[in-house]
């Protein structure tokens, strides 16, 4: 295990302007204005919060995993990481993290990818990409964007540990998260956040037990 970077937040949950618990397998889509702080709280531990960000003014600008890891020169996300858009603008910055690091290479599960990873018997189980699609399809402010699967780029997996070895292997290691760990982001532009609280039942990374996460928002 390499270095984990822990940074506590001074913000008190009692002063949050918004709190919501996302059940396992559900999605949450919400505007985050520039300067607001979003905390994602792993209530029961090792739960994957599959997360995307869009520029509120134009969903064609969205989170970019490749640009984020390249511009930060790091494959892991933690305090100090700037989240870049596909237009190379900073969407948000991670300003607190009690988990230590987060993954952005593993992407989101889908029914179709599940047939590859686990076998065709899992084809009709729930998956993150179903949640992402339903989120985009039902977002009331998206009229005119004609959103579809093209608008789901590779996401962030908060609380997931997917180490890359120097030999170029990709491991699915034991979680580094635990109950009560959280990550906090400060928005640098007006954003829409889309979280799929991962329903995956076939992967030991969440102990085969998807659990709820909480989101909290503070005004600047």
């Amino acid at each position, binding site marked *: 295990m*390499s*270095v984990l970077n822990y940074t506590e937040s001074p913000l008190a949950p009692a002063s949050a302007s918004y709190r919501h618990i996302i059940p396992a397998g559900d999605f949450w889509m919400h505007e985050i204005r520039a300067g607001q702080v979003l905390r994602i709280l792993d209530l029961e531990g090792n739960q994957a919060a599959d997360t995307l960000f869009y520029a509120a003014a134009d969903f*064609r600008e969205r989170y*970019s*995993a*490749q*640009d984020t*890891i*390249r511009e930060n*020169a*790091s*494959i*892991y996300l933690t305090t100090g990481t700037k989240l870049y858009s*596909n237009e*190379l603008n900073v969407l948000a910055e991670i300003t607190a993290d009690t988990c230590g*690091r987060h993954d952005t*290479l*593993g*992407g*989101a599960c*889908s*029914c*179709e*990818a*599940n*047939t*590859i*990873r*686990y*076998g*065709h*018997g*899992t084809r009709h189980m729930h998956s993150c*990409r179903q949640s992402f699609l339903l989120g985009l399809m039902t977002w009331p402010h998206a009229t005119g964007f004609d959103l*579809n*699967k*093209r*608008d789901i*780029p*590779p996401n962030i997996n908060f609380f997931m540990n*997917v*180490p*890359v*070895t*120097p030999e*170029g*292997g*990709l*491991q*699915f290691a034991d979680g580094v998260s635990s109950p009560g760990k959280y990550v906090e982001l400060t928005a640098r532009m007006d954003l829409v956040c889309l979280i799929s609280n991962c329903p995956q039942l*076939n*992967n*030991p990374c969440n102990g085969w037990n998807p659990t709820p996460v909480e989101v909290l928002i503070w005004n600047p």
Partner: protein
Amino acid sequence: MPLLTPPAPSGTSFTTQRPTGPIPQPAPIPADRLLLEETLPGGTAVSFNVRRHTTLRLTALEAGANVSFLCFNRAEPVDRYNLPDTLKGQHTAKLTTGCLLYSDMGRALFSITGDTLGWHDPLGGHDTAAHVAKKWGHLDYQTSRNAWHRNSRDHFLIELAKHGLNARDLVPNINFFSKLETSPAGALSFVPNHARAGDHLDLRAELDVLVILTTCHHPLDTAPAYGPKPVLLQLHATPPPASDDYCRTYRPENERALYNSERFSL
């Protein structure tokens, strides 16, 4: 045609087993199999179709070449190469012989059937006009004509538009012939001159595929001067993957991805 049935599931084992025995090496292309041969100058781009079970060979004509590469299911371009699905399905953060390029609909688009280099970069993304200008200065067309400084982002947008696609289809790309090193702490760094002149890899199409590629610099290239290198493109006819095909048996996941391509092609 026999009834198509799904391959067995592999359970929930997350150990990373690879085939034992020798890794297949790319063989010379027999003259009677060669369908097309083109040299692409450095800093340029092209888009073209590769028919199912035809193989695309890319050859670095000079050391330090880079090919920034996108691919789409030709019949249904909303089905396209997916970086995370490809990496996690094969437990890899590099691309080389044995690896498949998975689409986001769970299909195999290409199989890497041969590779003289051992490591191609799936992580670094592509360069933009700002990257090029910051490192090597801005040389515009008015001043420099064909010696102007070019970048993958602009090429990708132009080639996507030729096929009715746009910036929303500009998904994470591969950089063939380039390598990024990862430290145990996760820091990324560019390995200069990874490809030697003559290094090549073979990509066998598992569906009819639309390819868009550029020969611009890798975005983290540390070369002292702008100078993207030329690349040779060759298409040749190859048989479909046999039951003991190296790519098919590289991971149990690959068998199921090839099944999904087969199912799409019924």
